[in-house]
């Protein structure tokens, strides 16, 4: 498959053509990948504006709500549960692309509260990644090496002169900058000496001179009195670094199934290196590219739990309890601030196994049912028709009258109508069949209930698992 992709074509800018028109499907694809999905209005707007303007708008985002930054600083630092919930709120706020990229970096520098055990340090690390998300990779990696959460997570704080701990040195090279095969075990042992005496004082990085090894180390074949900053710099200068990051971003934003061959990655890596490892530009090149909008890229990823859950929330236009969402994400396999290992989440098909699939389908049902634990009813029970709490309200807002309209609208929002005709027919058949609902139910409920079931069925379609 991959052999046939011309790298020149792949990374050139996508321009809509008769053969590859800009349409609802491509707009949905863009929102799923770059952000966390879209609602109907956003999709229509994107189709109208075209890919160029839409991507520009998405990358710029809108000014984030300042109260959420404060919430992260206050409640988030006090309690990891609040930090998780606040992050969910920010993902649903006005700059989802920024949060998605921060989540990419969280998966890259995969640090877990399970060991760090300080919500304050986890939030500081989140803010470090948030601050540098679109910027050059170098300063982010330098700061990350001195980040307290990271220093606890990979034992830098325990590494002392004569008795270096190799944990950070190894993962710096294997997982954060170069990838396996680009360094030796000796490089790891030598680099570890350079990080000795690094400790946390007053919540910040500090050098404990007596515990620091000032002597010569041979790293990548060069001898010098290297310190940790030198080691990080030499990793950043290594030819493997831009390739490694470009490949990782390819996996996150382009495809689980297209092989990121050397030929395909090289132009991306070259541009990345020439831009001074500017990650925002790398992302922009990917999002605007022919390959990103090509048919082999379309639906070639499995949604992560966050993408699955927030995609439903955005599409349904409901307000949710972010704490409950953050909690259910744990059972779906994506516990924010607690990735399973320093390698992060495996992603791709590993997201879906028997148990997590069932959890996903059951979560979809709960999100369709306003009585569930996830859906908030703003207005404290006030009967305000403008508030959407469940599929019935959404369909009413968009003026659906017939059964066919309703099925098509739900399919449009969640799958941009792209399902087999037979499946659509089955859904219409189902929606046309009167369920035997208890006669004592209030009339309102008799109208609302079948639409919950219908929306749930749309969300259980296999296509909806794909990103």
């Amino acid at each position, binding site marked *: 498959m991959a052999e046939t992709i011309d790298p020149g074509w792949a990374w050139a800018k996508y321009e809509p053509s008769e053969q590859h028109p800009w349409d609802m499907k491509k707009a949905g694809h863009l929102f799923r990948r770059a952000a966390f999905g879209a609602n109907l209005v956003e999709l229509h707007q994107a189709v109208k504006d075209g890919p160029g303007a839409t991507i520009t708008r998405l990358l710029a985002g809108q000014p984030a709500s300042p109260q959420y930054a404060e919430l992260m600083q206050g409640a988030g630092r006090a309690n990891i549960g609040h930090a998780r919930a606040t992050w969910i709120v920010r993902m649903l706020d006005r700059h989802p692309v920024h949060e998605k990229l921060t989540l990419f970096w969280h998966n890259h520098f995969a640090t877990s509260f399970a060991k760090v055990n300080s919500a304050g340090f986890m939030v500081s690390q989140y803010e470090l990644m948030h601050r540098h998300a679109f910027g050059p990779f170098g300063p982010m990696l330098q700061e990350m090496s001195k980040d307290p959460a990271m220093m606890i997570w990979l034992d830098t704080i325990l590494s002392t002169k004569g008795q270096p701990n190799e944990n950070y040195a190894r993962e710096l090279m294997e997982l954060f900058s170069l990838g396996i095969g680009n360094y030796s075990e000796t490089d790891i042992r030598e680099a570890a000496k350079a990080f000795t005496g690094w400790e946390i004082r007053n919540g910040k990085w500090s050098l404990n001179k007596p515990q620091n090894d000032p002597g010569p180390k041979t790293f990548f074949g060069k001898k010098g009195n290297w310190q940790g900053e030198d080691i990080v710099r030499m990793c950043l200068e290594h030819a493997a670094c831009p390739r490694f990051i470009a490949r990782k971003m390819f996996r996150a934003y382009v495809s*689980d199934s*297209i092989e990121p061959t050397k030929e395909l990655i090289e132009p991306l890596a070259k541009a990345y290196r020439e831009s001074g490892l500017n990650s925002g530009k790398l992302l922009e090149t990917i999002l605007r590219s022919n390959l990103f909008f090509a048919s082999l890229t379309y639906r070639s990823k499995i949604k992560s739990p966050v993408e699955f859950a927030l995609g439903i929330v955005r599409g349904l236009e409901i307000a949710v309890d972010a704490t409950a969402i953050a909690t259910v994400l744990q059972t779906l396999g994506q516990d924010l601030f607690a990735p399973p290992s320093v390698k992060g989440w495996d992603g791709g098909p*590993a997201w879906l196994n028997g148990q997590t699939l069932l959890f996903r389908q059951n979560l979809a049902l709960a999100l369709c049912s306003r009585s569930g634990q996830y859906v908030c009813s703003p207005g404290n029970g006030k009967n305000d028709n403008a508030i959407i709490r469940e599929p019935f309200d959404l369909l009413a807002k968009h003026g659906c009258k017939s059964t066919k309209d309703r099925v098509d609208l739900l399919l449009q929002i969640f799958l941009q109508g792209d399902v087999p005709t037979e499946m659509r027919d089955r859904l219409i058949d189902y929606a046309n069949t009167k369920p035997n609902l208890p006669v004592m139910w209030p009339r309102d409920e008799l109208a609302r209930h079948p639409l919950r079931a219908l929306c749930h069925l749309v969300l259980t379609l*296999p296509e909806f698992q794909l990103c």
Partner: protein
Amino acid sequence: MSSRRDFLKTSSLIGFGLTVPTFLGRTAFAAEPAGKAGAKDTILVVVQLTGGNDGLNTVIPFADPDYAKQRPTIQIPKDQIRKIDDSIGLHPALDGMAGLLQDRALCVVQGVGYPNPSQSHFRSMDIWHAASIKEQLTEGWIGNALKQKPFGAFHVAAGNESAPLALNGAPARVPSITSIEDFQLRMSATGGKDGKAQKNLIENAAKMPTSQPSLLDFVQKTALNTYASSQRLQEVAKNYQPKEAYPQTGLATRLKLAAQLIDAGLGARIFYVSIDGFDTHANQGGVAGAHANLLTEVSGAITAFFKDLAARGQRDRVLVMTFSEFGRRAHENGSKGTDHGSGAPMLLVGGKVKPGLVGKHPALTNLEMGNLKHAIDFRQVYASVLDQWLGISSAKVLGEGFKPVDVFRS
């Protein structure tokens, strides 16, 4: 590296032949009725110790003076060690397993590893899962074994755990399950007819033909397999009464669920569980502490599981096998922990294992970059399990050249 593997994982999942899990529809590979002593259909339970278990403080060469030198602060005092013979013994946290040894149900395979060991957690774990040191690893050894004989299998998962590479490549996707209660599809139905219509629609969606092998195909097959397994499992009695008290730990809970699934007579013969936390770079402790706590959890869970099944007449059907991606450095580091190493022991528990030690403890005077050398390739242990326990040709799964180790009683 990881990206390539993940890609290949995907492609290996594409295009497998069967659509319905074989064990659900057939009885050919089903177990003898539960409770029947000496049932011949053997069961394998793999227990993964994630993070690199410190083998040297698990199976300890206490008589070797170099042991104490290598471990100035985290050594286990001689008098606390559960002795296997005059020179080798178990960490005291493995008390339960020491009891199993008395009961002739524990086999300790020493010095297990592979050539040119990788000290990356992820690469080394992949090697153990795939039973291969090829650069690109796409399928697991159990997945490949299931191609030879499509036994039923379950991955009994902790909350935040994805399916292991070891199970990749199986003809029907091996389901992960965290609890029977959770393993069901909920519907908004109020009446039987509506519920049935919804269920039909959901199942039909998983059977819609796809134009080409793709991720969609993968999702559909996962879904189909899951819905079928789920239905079957709901018939399993929910109130399992173990015949042995299980500790209140994550691993024990997972093994208890495995025991329940075995007892239900579903015919599943392979179970996979994991316990994480063995990456003890710092403050790993000695007799007590982080590493001891982990060993306590492992020993308590496996011991309870084995005794529970033995009390149900399944003693001779079950084999539990532990492994970790590597052992740890012989000399402790400055943080009172240990860095990544290589050779380490594997523990086998079962009614039919050869009790005691197999192989020699790696010499502490002959280290390789400070690490213990292996003498037995882990694929030789896999070969014994495949050939002599599961009745699956190891040559077909692992390739030729892995001589089985003598770990079973004849």
